[in-house]
């Protein structure tokens, strides 16, 4: 059964099974709680930023997530991608991933940029699942925006 296997590839199964950077950690600058209203999946996610002089770095992302394979794996892959990046680059990744998700299976994802996240290309063929793949990203974006709004760093 090809489509199913390409949707739930090894990368997704692995990340869903062992979520990287899981758990809620201190210190953090902002927290966000996001819900998928269709199924009640939820993620609570914390972001810690670090001022590296001329740029702002994503120092840590920690989370607790209830969800399906797609949603758990996407959050895990996301943390791998953004932790350590500067905030602007991480936001660009977010945008790239968002575009991929809305591509309806048409986009050629940039593996150099998205790394493991290219494994989610198959999800874009199933519009009902896009929200699953985006739940963690949305929470991250929201928490980061809050951290910035609250004037980090001051």
């Amino acid at each position, binding site marked *: 059964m090809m489509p199913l296997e390409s949707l739930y590839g090894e990368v997704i199964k692995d990340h869903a099974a062992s979520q990287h950077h899981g758990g809620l950690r201190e210190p953090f600058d902002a927290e966000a709680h996001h*819900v998928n*209203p*269709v199924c009640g999946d939820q993620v609570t996610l914390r972001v810690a930023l670090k001022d590296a002089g001329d740029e702002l770095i994503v120092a840590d992302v920690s989370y607790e997530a209830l969800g399906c394979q797609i949603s758990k794996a996407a959050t895990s892959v996301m943390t791998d991608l953004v932790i350590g990046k500067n905030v602007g680059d991480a936001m660009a990744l977010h945008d790239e991933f968002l575009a991929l998700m809305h591509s309806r299976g048409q986009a050629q994802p940039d593996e150099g940029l998205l790394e493991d996240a290219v494994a989610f290309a198959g999800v874009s063929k199933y*519009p*009902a*699942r896009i929200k699953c793949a985006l739940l963690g990203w949305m929470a991250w974006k929201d928490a980061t925006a809050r951290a910035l709004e609250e004037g980090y760093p001051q």
Partner: protein
Amino acid sequence: MTAGPLDVAAIRGDFPVLVRTVRNGRPLVYLDSGATSHKPRQVLDAEREFYERHNSAAHRGTHLLGEEATDAYEGARAKVAAFIGAGTDEVVFTKNTTEAINLVAYAMSNARCGRFAVGPGDEILITEMEHHANLVPWQQLCERTGATLRWLAVAPDGRLDLDDLEPMITGRTRIVAVTHQSNVTGTIPPVTEIARAAHARGALVLADAAQSVPHQPVDVTELGVDFLAFSGHKMLGPYGIGVLFGRGELLEAMPPFLTGGSMIEVVRMEGSTFLPPPQRFEPGVPAVAQAAGLAAAVDYLTGLGMASVAAHEESLTAHALDALGEINGVRILGPATTKDRGGAVSVEVEDVHPHDVGQVLDELGIAVRTGHHCAWPLHRALGVQASTRASFYVYNTHAEVDALAEGIRYAQRFFGTA
């Protein structure tokens, strides 16, 4: 989009109902599109195609049919939004114009604070020209909240008396709700000007576009309104679907109206939170087949070109104003020319009651509407109890206008008034 005149013969071929005969074996002359339009084959096919191939509850299933239904529904939303120059998320599907206007009126009494909250001392401004759908909901809002209803008068020529406009919009006016085209006189009030005056004093503006969106190009940005309401069934689409356009930031700030499934974010017994618009205003399994039908209607109208639609109706209206105007004992309600006037032509036939006029026309196969057409105060303002209304659409012909004039003369002879 074609700019030229409509090919009415070809258009008529798309409307199965137009070939039927009515009383006394007469061909149908349908001049009641103001009540509801007929639907072309393309719209009926789109609905049927949805039911036969893709039927499913949109926004729910994680299965293929559910996905297709969601695409059909959201595709229709995008199409309708483009048709009126709105953002996709600014289009809320309702069941009709009536629900759309009630939605705004109830949201204003549901709001416990903020921009939408209405209370004693606040004012709602409407006009004497309104269809009951844009009148009674505001009366009810005032009853619920203690606000005061005020209204602009209609001049004897069927136009709004705009001298009153500035003084009537006070610092307490919360919303100005006005028709964008009268369903009785065809009058097209200067909504843009009214909106500007309202906004200058901090009031919101809602246009009842039930009779404008089907008949003329409408762009919400040009109009400058905050809300716009219309019905699918008057624009070649199915029953059971209507539209509320609302400016994004306003919908965002508005409390919900109808509540239930799929408009919620989190539900606990103790309380619930709600999704962003448009979902916030669309509880329940959506009317996807009707949305698909409405999308096909928009395609059909776009194919004809709304400018051409308006031009065709203007020419029929001019013809009707002439042909009816020259009949002794016939008084045309509202503007005597096609300037700022759409294709609803209502007349008073001296000494013949509209029901009796309508009865004679019906025997001749001519379908018009008789009564006050859900605009009773407007009839009072024009000094008539009721009227006989012909209203035109893309499939009507000049021959039908002649038949109408002939029919009215016949009625006069029949009742011995001519």
